[in-house]
């Protein structure tokens, strides 16, 4: 896809803003990595070699019996018994003294009938967002070499939860922003294009809608329907689509009297075609200028809801919930520091990127 000369100039403008460019790069790397969170922080190995066969536990379910254990349930890969079974090729003695055998395998001195050395490749962080850490002491546990950012108050690894939480925040925000933008743009376009009574009535409806206390609606709907990711997406879209309406409506009100729109009308081109072929592309700049506010607003809303305990289901990796734990465990400052740092970095990167985007779209800069 070739960029039009105008977009080419905008891209060059954006690239000239080094802070925005580097923010975009860092953000893309972080987000890209977080998309592969399962391979970075997981309580299952990426690859297992057991008796000459290869297993990929992240993708498939393997019962413990597949590695010579007793249970039909999924193998608990972090148990010493299962690790011993994998590394020794299913030696019965593993049930008695797994640590001893593992140590001997490590030094290469283990000898037994049917011993076949196996191995497993682990993600750099051997915990998932919901797996509990096997460490003595009362949670929350401070950072050490095992848990670089400590654990939260249910002994879950904070670093793993932050990685998953970052991904969830961004994905959630992208979904909500996309849906809210689509709805808002369509509503604003219809209002601005047709104007008159449609505009007047819709504006009043939006005012009433905007005055609805969304928090109560969320609490009530969650109480009735139960908490879920998609329900929260739905509710937030329901209450955030109005943000873009004003901007798009204003652009369309302006554009509908422009000569090229009149020319298209005189040609008899349909309303929908005029709106989306001629007017929307020209209204995009104002829309894009508005998007950053929706994105950062959605991130904050999600965090706020989680902090209040009305957000995503409690097992979800959530930065808001981490903040709540930090508040409840003031003796564990690593929770607060982590939550603060992640939010600060995430929001700063986004704000810097969008600042660059906005400047790049600024017509006064575009034609320098």
């Amino acid at each position: 896809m070739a960029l039009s000369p105008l977009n080419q100039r905008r891209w060059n403008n954006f690239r000239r803003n080094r802070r925005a460019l580097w923010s975009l790069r860092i953000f893309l790397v972080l987000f890209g990595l977080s998309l592969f969170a399962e391979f970075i922080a997981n309580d299952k190995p990426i690859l297992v070699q057991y008796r000459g066969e290869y297993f990929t536990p992240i993708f498939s379910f393997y019962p413990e019996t597949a590695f010579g254990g007793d249970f039909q349930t999924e193998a608990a890969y972090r148990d010493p018994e299962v690790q011993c079974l994998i590394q020794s090729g299913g030696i019965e003695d593993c049930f008695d003294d797994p640590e001893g055998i593992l140590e001997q395998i490590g030094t290469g001195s283990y000898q037994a009938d049917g011993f076949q050395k196996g191995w497993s490749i682990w993600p750099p962080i051997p915990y998932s967002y919901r797996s509990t850490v096997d460490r003595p002491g009362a949670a929350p546990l401070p950072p050490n070499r095992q848990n670089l950012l400590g654990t939260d108050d249910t002994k879950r690894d904070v670093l793993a939860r932050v990685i998953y939480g970052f991904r969830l925040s961004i994905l959630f925000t992208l979904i909500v922003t996309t849906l809210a933008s689509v709805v808002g743009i369509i509503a604003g376009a219809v209002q601005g294009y047709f104007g008159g009574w449609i505009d007047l009535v819709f504006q009043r409806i939006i005012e009433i809608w905007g005055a609805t206390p969304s928090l109560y609606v969320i609490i009530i709907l969650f109480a009735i329907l139960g908490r879920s990711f998609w329900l929260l997406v739905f509710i937030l879209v329901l209450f955030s689509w109005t943000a873009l309406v004003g901007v798009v409506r204003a652009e369309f009100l302006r554009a509908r009297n422009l000569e090229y729109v009149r020319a298209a009308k005189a040609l008899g081109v349909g309303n929908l075609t005029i709106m989306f072929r001629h007017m929307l592309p020209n209204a995009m700049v104002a829309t894009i200028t508005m998007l950053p506010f929706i994105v950062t607003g959605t991130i904050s809303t999600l965090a706020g809801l989680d902090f209040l305990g009305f957000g995503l289901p409690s097992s979800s990796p959530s930065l808001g919930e981490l903040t709540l734990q930090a508040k409840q465990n003031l003796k564990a400052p690593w929770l607060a520091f982590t939550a603060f740092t992640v939010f600060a970095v995430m929001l700063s990167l986004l704000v810097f990127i969008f600042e660059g985007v906005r400047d790049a779209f600024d017509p006064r800069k575009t034609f320098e």
Partner: protein
Amino acid sequence: MTLPPQAPNAPPVQPIFELIEVEQVFEVPKPGRPLFSRDTVGLRALDGVRLSIRKGTSLAIVGESGSGKSTLLRVLLGLDKPSGGRALYRGKPIGEARAQGTDFARDVAMVYQDARGSLDPRMTIGAILAEPLRHFNIVPPEGEAQRIAHLLDRVGLPVDAAERFPSGLSGGQVRRVAIARALASEPSVLVADEAVSGLDVSTQAQLLTLLQSLQRDMGLTLAFITHDLGVASYLCEEIAIMYLGRIVETGPTDAVLNAPAHPYSAALRAAAPQFFEPLSEPLPGEIPSPLDLPKGCRFSTRCPVAQSDCQSKDPQLGKLGSGRAVACIHPITQA
């Protein structure tokens, strides 16, 4: 010798456009009305316009700004419904013709005054020209590129202009694109609103030559709105001179311009600069407000030869010899 049989009352050839006593009154807020008052006052943008455009002719509509040229144009295109009188296209009311399918929009094409503004700044020239082609199903999709190239060639633009955006073209080129777009729907009527104004004279001359050759080759009917008598005399066989929402004089261009019968036409003629000639005294004052039309003849307030009865009687457009008509009580007669 036998003459071809002819009905005794053969109807005259039906004109493409016929305006009969067309009025266009806009209700505007009354000047100086108190807050919250809903008083309006009628703005008579068109006031009894009579005009017919025959097939294959070219008509110039000339007048000062504010004389109602653009309103007339919107009525001709069926974009506004006149508030009084009848506006007919091939014998049918224009509004009806426009509502019935795409034939009207296809047959009557428009070149806008603000050519650059009439082209979507985010579409390439090719896409702009493709829009009417697609909208009216004029060529199959595979023939589109060829047709666009043909259109560009017809208006004297290079073929690679199709890849460019309007912002990358000069004023003259943009006008050519606007003309090409108008021609894309294969119209029989071309309505042009100040299509050559504001260009330097050499570009203007090129465009006039282009329009003339297009009209000749494609048998177009041309309605050309301008304020430049020179342009009108070059391009159009007929001329209609407007003043304050009414046509004050029509007729063949050379007859009207060489021997204007209405004092306003004479004044316009005299106001056009000539080489090395001093300009004659311009008309006094401004065009009166259409909110508050003068009593009697609307030109009487500025007319250099107004007489006492001019302020009491509103003259209608009346016949004056061969194909001419004038709305004046005391038309200028050439000695």
